[in-house]
């Protein structure tokens, strides 16, 4: 008897396998997309940690403004137009009156006010007075708004539970149903462009009003529930199978006009090989971040367009500037001259990478020292710096892809120039972070990734105002650099900003606390049937910002 019931259970599970997803069968055009990088299965910015989420959310949600494919020019989104006050601290956004949530509820300024207040009320201040934001991943611009610090909640005695604050953020004001004013603490030239990042997504007050920090990660809206996870965007969520697919359907009432493609399915792959096979067999129309090694083969496929794009994340060496002999600038400069960056780009990346000369995001000014590959010059500088053969221990997370191939190349170059380079790989991210704290463990640490390439301001976080602050990656400190970084954002005049950044670039270029190596290209592949307004953004995560303008030719 029990066996029969077990048999029925087993049979039901198998039947479910054969019918999974059948409910979404439809006619019409369907765009199948894959982004071959990590993803988190959340639909709320409290857990916004990956570029994949950025893409899904661009189709489902909106922010106040968007950017064009250069990732810098600001265009309207939920805000039709906006005005900035004389002193540059106050922004007035005029919201589009036609925008509605996918469940039919009209979108109003209340939703903007709610989003910002919820963020403030559920964040807290840590013991140093810094904002401990409730969003765990990428941070929104809301922290720069005046009055946020007064509206925060408090951390309970157990150190885990947060009692939400009740005060409204003074810097946000609803003027009327379609107008909202935001006042910042100080002028911030990056505020407006920063709003295009999906951590600033505007959330529905009527759905999330009762959620708090304690349950926000598990409420139906956040985990992806069709009908509850509503946005104002061109596509509605129709199905979400975590780690497998995100299925969207066109929103005919979209305030910028109904999209042309009927359905979008984001496929999540654990392994890029499947995705590449599917591109070739015609089961995938668009893929981001395909390994550069596949470029040539895919480019030969007559049905595919293959594009190589710049990567805003980079490969660099942070030098321990407080430990002899690397506290002497000539020795650091010798490091830069000793490494043949172009050779690594050519041999390992087959040319599909950009050599870097300074922090990406900064213009490569004419008076920047490019530290060309010159082992003789390196030797000379070592002599000037009084280098006596001390080890240069390079600490890095041994699990990052290609570590095993690239690090020995760098070591070989350094050794050839007379530098006693040692490799110290760790067995994971945590041990890397732990070993980083003890400054005697390393002379150089390798860090990869980030998105410094998007703006000069994004490099600031890697430096600290105190030299031996174990919290940041670089020991280098110089009060002048922080003055210049602040100067760069506290004015909107492009000429003044460029002047500050130019000076900053020169200081960092001369003192060389970091040796920048290269930024590997990203490869995007699209089917030739994809057209209309389709374009890859400089920040490829943003590419879905105008998805409603794309067209897909029917399969032959």
């Amino acid at each position, binding site marked *: 008897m029990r066996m029969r019931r077990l048999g029925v259970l087993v049979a039901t599970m198998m039947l479910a396998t054969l019918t999974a997803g059948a409910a979404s069968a439809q006619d019409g055009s369907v765009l199948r997309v894959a982004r071959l990088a990590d993803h988190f299965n959340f639909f709320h910015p409290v857990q916004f940690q990956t570029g994949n989420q950025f893409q899904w959310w661009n189709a489902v949600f909106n922010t106040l403004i968007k950017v064009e494919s250069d990732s810098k020019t600001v265009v309207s989104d939920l805000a039709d137009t906006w005005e900035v006050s004389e002193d540059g601290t106050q922004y007035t956004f005029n919201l589009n009156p036609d925008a509605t949530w996918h469940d039919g509820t009209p979108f109003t300024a209340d939703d903007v006010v709610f989003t910002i207040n919820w963020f403030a009320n559920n964040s807290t201040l840590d013991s140093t007075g810094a904002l401990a934001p409730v969003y765990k991943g990428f941070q929104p611009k809301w922290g720069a708004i005046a009055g946020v610090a007064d509206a925060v909640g408090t951390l309970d005695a157990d150190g885990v539970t947060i009692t939400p604050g009740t005060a409204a953020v003074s810097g946000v004001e609803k003027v009327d149903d379609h107008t909202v004013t935001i006042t910042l603490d100080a002028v911030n030239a990056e505020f407006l462009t920063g709003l295009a990042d999906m951590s600033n997504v505007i959330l529905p007050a009527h759905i999330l009003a009762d959620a708090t920090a304690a349950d926000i990660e598990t409420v139906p809206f956040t985990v992806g529930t069709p009908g509850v996870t509503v946005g104002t965007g061109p596509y509605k969520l129709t199905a979400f199978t975590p780690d497998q697919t995100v299925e969207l359907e066109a929103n005919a009432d979209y305030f910028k006009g109904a999209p042309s493609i009927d359905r979008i399915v984001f496929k999540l792959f654990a*392994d890029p090989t499947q995705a590449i096979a599917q591109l070739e067999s015609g089961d995938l129309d668009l893929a981001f971040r395909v390994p550069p090694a596949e470029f040539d083969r895919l480019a030969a496929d007559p049905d595919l367009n293959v594009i190589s794009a710049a990567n805003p994340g980079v490969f660099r060496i942070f030098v321990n500037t407080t430990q002899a002999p690397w506290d002497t600038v000539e020795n650091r400069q010798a490091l830069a001259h000793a490494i043949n960056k172009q050779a690594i780009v050519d041999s390992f990346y087959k040319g599909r990478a950009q050599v870097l000369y300074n922090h990406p995001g900064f213009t490569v000014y004419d008076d920047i020292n490019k530290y060309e590959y010159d082992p003789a010059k390196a030797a000379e500088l070592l002599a000037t710096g009084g280098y006596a053969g001390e080890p240069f221990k390079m600490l890095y997370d041994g699990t990052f892809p290609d570590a095993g191939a690239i690090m020995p190349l760098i070591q070989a170059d350094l050794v050839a120039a007379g530098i006693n380079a040692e490799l110290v790989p760790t067995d994971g991210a945590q041990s890397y972070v732990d070993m980083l704290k003890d400054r005697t463990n390393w002379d150089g640490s390798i860090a990869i990734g980030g998105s410094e390439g998007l703006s000069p301001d994004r490099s600031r976080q890697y430096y600290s105002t105190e030299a031996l602050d174990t919290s940041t990656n670089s020991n280098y400190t110089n009060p002048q650099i922080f003055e210049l970084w602040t100067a760069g954002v506290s004015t909107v005049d492009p000429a003044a900003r460029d002047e500050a950044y130019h000076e900053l670039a020169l200081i960092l270029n001369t003192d060389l606390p970091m040796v920048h190596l290269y930024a590997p290209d990203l490869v995007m592949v699209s089917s030739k049937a994809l057209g209309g307004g389709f374009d890859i953004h400089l920040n490829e995560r943003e590419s879905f910002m105008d998805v409603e303008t794309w067209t897909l030719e029917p399969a032959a």
Partner: protein
Amino acid sequence: MGAYFIRRVLIAIPVLLGITILAFLVVSMTPGDPLTARMDPETLARMQAHPEQMEALRRQYGLDQPIPVQYVKWLGGVLQGDLGYAISTGRPIAAEIGPRIGPSLMLMLLAAIVALAFGLPAGILSAVHQYGKVDYLLSTLTVLLISTPTFVLGLVAIYVFGVTLNVLPVGELYTIGKEDDLLDRLSHFVLPALILGLVNAALLMRYTRASMVEALGADYITTARSKGLSSRVVVIRHGLRNALIPVITVLAFLMPELIAGAVVTETVFNWPGLGQLSIKAAKAGDPAMMMGIVLIVGIAVLAASIVADLAYSMADPRIRFDRGR
């Protein structure tokens, strides 16, 4: 019979407990941290700048407790039917594992059928024509299948049948746009089940062949032949029935082989099953998720070994009657 079954089940419980303790120890010793493993460098830099906030995050997930405490908490939860929450999705782990059991089960069942359908007859043929041309051909084929890694076989199959010839799908459960096409869905099973099945067929073939050869050399076979029975009756009714007894034991080992093989097969074919989930859990370093999978797989393997024991005692009357005493 009933008492034997109950005794086996009772013994299995402490075994399962032991498995979970061992697994928990291994999982907690693995390098990597579920919190920082997948953090963007910018987020990591921010967290490093505010160590207090990092600690608060750790406390929230219960990762600041000593290991025995974490284990007891986990066990307590399991006994109440709560497998915990996955760090990377915020969803209950039971909800993560549940929908994946069906696809994995179907895949393993079909692979088992393939393994039996190819392995048994091949083993019998080889044994009957021992040292003949058929035997050498089949033996070479099986050695080839056993020594080629599953992912190589899978990738070759994908590229030959899926991309170049374009006759079979390259992976997953269904084709988008053809969700209600049953034939399409069945076609998605073909390659993964074949790959996983053929490797195990090769293993099964070798055991069957060895067992058959031994059985066919026994005295009672000579007696049967001298009685004038046809070759077919001798081989099947007298030889095979006895040869199958040790093969049943091997079939019990087929289950863990299929599970282990499924991990690779599911990754290659992007199959949404437990194997793929276990890789995901390992990469994320999520202890609760990994323990959930160990629990399910542990139960499955123990159940299979109990079933095999019962089948064995049913097939061999000597065992059944011996126990009676």
